[in-house]
């Protein structure tokens, strides 16, 4: 009996270090390894963010030189408010340049279009020689804000050509949010550059600035 207990004691003493090591491995495996793996994943994620930010910063620095000009051009081509007045002014200037008589110009109420685009219809009458009327219609595509011709009714008489024209111009709200700082941005694609190039050739509207009146000032505007 005494011999048996001595054997057990020896076996326990010999096996204890092995058992302790196994338990330690299990503890470290359960808590230490996941912690290190999580840390590695955080490092990878931070490195990706760092890469995105570096690319974004480089692109921003490259594009920042002329993006303000581009923004002005596209905002003029597609403004954020109803462009009826600007378009009417452009159509009148165009009529003067093309030697046609423009009359009966009117603008209808604006409607909401698709994809965030709003539309305003403008109709008018043109009188002149046929080549000038055709030239006028072709030039409409070259004005800013962007205007498309929807309906044309041309009547020809011995006196010349008379045309009832219906055009549509557009506007859309400006974007209200910018992407998150870590969100990447991309350079302009060749198609984007082509559209930008086309838009930059549009004839910009010119407005006459009316200075504030410098007439008599009423010293007592609320008086009797």
């Amino acid at each position, binding site marked *: 009996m005494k011999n048996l207990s001595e054997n057990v004691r020896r076996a326990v003493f010999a096996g204890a270090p092995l058992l302790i090591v196994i338990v330690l491995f299990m503890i470290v495996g359960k808590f230490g390894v996941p912690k290190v793996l999580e840390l590695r994943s955080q490092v990878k994620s931070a490195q990706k963010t760092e890469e995105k930010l570096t690319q974004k910063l480089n692109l921003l620095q490259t594009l920042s030189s002329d993006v303000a000009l*581009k923004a002005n051009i596209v905002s003029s081509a597609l403004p954020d408010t109803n462009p009826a007045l600007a378009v009417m002014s452009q159509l009148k200037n165009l009529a003067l340049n093309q030697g046609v008589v423009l009359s009966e110009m009117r603008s209808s109420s604006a409607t909401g279009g698709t994809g965030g685009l709003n539309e305003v219809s403008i109709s008018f009458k043109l009188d002149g020689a046929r080549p000038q009327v055709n030239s006028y219609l072709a030039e409409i595509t070259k004005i800013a804000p962007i205007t498309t011709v929807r309906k044309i009714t041309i009547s020809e008489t011995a006196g010349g050509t008379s045309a009832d024209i219906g055009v549509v111009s557009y506007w859309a709200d400006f974007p209200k949010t910018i992407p998150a700082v870590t969100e990447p941005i991309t350079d302009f694609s060749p198609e984007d550059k082509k559209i930008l190039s086309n838009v930059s050739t549009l004839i910009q509207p010119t407005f006459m600035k009316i200075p504030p009146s410098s007439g008599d000032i009423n010293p007592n505007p609320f008086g009797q």
Partner: protein
Amino acid sequence: MAIKLNLLPEEHAVNNNLSSFLKTAKALGVIGIAAFLIFGVGLGIFFILSTISLNSVNANVAKLTSRVEAQQKSEQQIVLVKDRIKKVASIQDLPNSLPNLKAIDAYLVNLSGTGSVGQLTVDPKGANLTLSLRTYSDLTNFLENIQSSDDFGSVSLESFSLNSKTGYSVEIKTTKK
């Protein structure tokens, strides 16, 4: 011949099976402790290096973030330009009458002297034309030209009349190709 002596008391004697087990267990224990030390130290070093690396990358990210934020105005303008470009592209797909006018006008230019346009209505779907032509050959030439062209989806003669003073009067309807 060598004689094996065992001076241990009999109650301290270990049988052979247990003896080999104890040796194996002791050896495994030593190997295990060594392996654990190597593993633990390695893991610790890896943890420290990863922490240093994370701190360094995070500091760089913070620096880059502030530099990107300083360029926020440019970013806003880029977003605006891209948004406008997308919308301008969608406007280009919207209905437009000018291609239809251009298509039919090519046939009307050749009319001078042989006929005259009464009324021409053009919309994005097609065109409707009222035309006077003086002679029968003018009429057939015009109709042959316009019907054989590839510029229209369809060409149809809507009405036809003959007036002894003005000649032939026709109404033609074309649809967009």
